[in-house]
């Protein structure tokens, strides 16, 4: 369990994180979202004890992480895949990390295998592509089999096979009861992977709720209708309170669900050749809710 309470972090005059409070529960994948510069990486650096908070606390299982004797068995983290020395081989890098935490060398081979890096284990990291470094960082995070895992944009540079691996990995880690916090800008990926969301903007909390709640709140449902009597249906739906526009010969209604639209059409004998409810997308919800937060102070989010 990760708990961030009233966390503020200033760098000189820049307030990167401001009075941020949220909880990340075990057994779920929690997406950590926010526009560029929102303070996600800063929050994670403070959580991991790399940066000191200006105010507030960030704890893992009730205690700060910074200063603990050993970390890998408690939190597995990938903050930045570039945070490695390019002169070492992948195996040497992982072996040194494992040794410091008294993790047996066999575990190094296991995570190399998991990440698909066995073939590259003897190569120096400087020659790795971004995706390979990302895999190496994830492998390092898995070394200790920690109950809490933190990933900052782990999907950067990964190929489709890698993305699939990571997606399955996160789901499985959560299913095993671990706490999984993942920051990402890939909304489509988060939509498939995350159970919960923590959304920040300009260092402040915008939302901490389930993915379903967030998307539902973020954008109203849309219903697409195809009918030969488009004009008639348009005025009927508008009269019933929906806002309707035409889009390439189709009607797109918002503010009304598909059932209502169908019922209204039936009542007036209007034939429908297509009636489709579109699920609101996370991306749309994100764009809308974070745009709002930039415009207004937080706490004012609809």
């Amino acid at each position: 369990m990760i708990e961030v309470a009233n966390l503020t972090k200033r760098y000189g005059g820049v307030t990167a994180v401001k009075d941020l409070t949220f909880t990340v529960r075990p057994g779920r994948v929690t997406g950590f979202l926010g526009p560029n510069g929102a303070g996600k990486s800063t929050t994670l650096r403070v959580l991991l004890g790399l940066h000191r908070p200006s105010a507030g606390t960030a704890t893992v299982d009730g205690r700060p992480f910074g200063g603990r004797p050993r970390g890998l068995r408690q939190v597995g983290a990938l903050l930045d895949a570039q945070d490695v020395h390019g002169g070492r081989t992948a195996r040497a890098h992982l072996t040194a990390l494992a040794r410091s935490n008294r993790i047996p060398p066999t575990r190094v081979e296991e995570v190399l295998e998991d990440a698909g890096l066995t073939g590259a284990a003897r190569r120096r990291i400087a020659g790795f592509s971004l995706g390979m470094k990302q895999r190496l960082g994830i492998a390092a995070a898995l070394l200790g089999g920690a109950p809490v895992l933190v990933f900052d944009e782990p999907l950067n540079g990964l190929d489709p096979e890698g993305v699939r691996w990571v997606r399955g990995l996160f789901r499985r880690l959560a299913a095993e009861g671990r706490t999984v916090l993942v920051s990402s800008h890939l909304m489509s990926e988060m939509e498939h992977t995350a159970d919960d969301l923590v959304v920040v903007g300009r260092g402040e909390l915008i939302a901490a709720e389930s993915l379903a709640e967030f998307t539902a709140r973020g954008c109203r449902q849309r219903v697409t209708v195809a009918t030969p009597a488009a004009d008639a249906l348009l005025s009927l739906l508008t009269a019933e309170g929906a806002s309707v526009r035409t889009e390439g010969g189709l009607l797109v209604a918002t503010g009304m669900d598909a059932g209502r639209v169908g019922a209204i059409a039936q009542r007036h004998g209007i034939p429908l050749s297509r009636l489709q409810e579109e699920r609101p997308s996370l991306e749309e919800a994100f764009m809308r809710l974070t745009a709002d937060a930039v415009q207004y102070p937080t706490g004012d989010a609809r």
Partner: protein
Amino acid sequence: MTTAPHASPRTAQPAVPQEEPRPRFADLVAAEWIKLRSLRSTWIAHGAAALAVTGLNAGTAYDTYAHWEERTPADRAAFVRAGLPLQEAFTVNAAVVTTVALCVLGALPLLGEFATGALRTTFTAVPARSAVTGAKAVVVAGFATAWGALVTVVSFLLTQAILDGRGVGIALDGPGVPRVLLASTLLAPVCALTGLALAAALRRTAATVLASVTAVMVLPLLLGEDRYWTALARHALLLAAWLRLTAPGGSAPPPYPWTEAGAWTVYAVWATAAVSVTVLAVRRRDV
């Protein structure tokens, strides 16, 4: 809610929660040693420095050998009486190169981690920062001591073999030999720790190199032996301590003499201060 639709069968994971073995400092030392030896640059840089220092010493001895015939018998006798064969085992030039080179080599393990960001990965794996920097100091000092011992002994054997060509080489158990060998060997780890401390405090490569050169090379040039206060300050410097410890028995004492024990103390104080600075400088700051 949390089923795993895409779970890949090739990942094996121990169950949560798990047993945690007792943390041991030795593990951190071992990890730092793996990090140091797994960099090709470690071996190239230390090898180049060893060649330079040994070459300087051997070159001086060879110069003496080559021009031996030009000396008068009285001159030759004075050369031996002044203890100069032993001085050629490790020359002042070699000592100056050693101080600068080892400062930089000692700084590199930490500078490399600052520059690449690898220190963040290190501190995430081991959040107890002081233990990490302490282990780094142990490894840096240990490796530099081995380097110093190797270079010093090889230099001694090589130079004395060359001088033996003129019959003036001295044996390992000759008078003053252990002191010279020890003082020259230990110069390496003390300088390496100094470099490490400067890296910890300054974090930037250029600044660290500049500060290293100033501390071990420029200051001894600026502070002379002739005035009381500059002599006093000079005697706190590493190179001055090394000069004091390796001064040939036959040389005239400086205007403000100091004891051998005082010179050893300078070594000890530099090493202790360097380790303290290293540990304190990265204990709390953001990385």
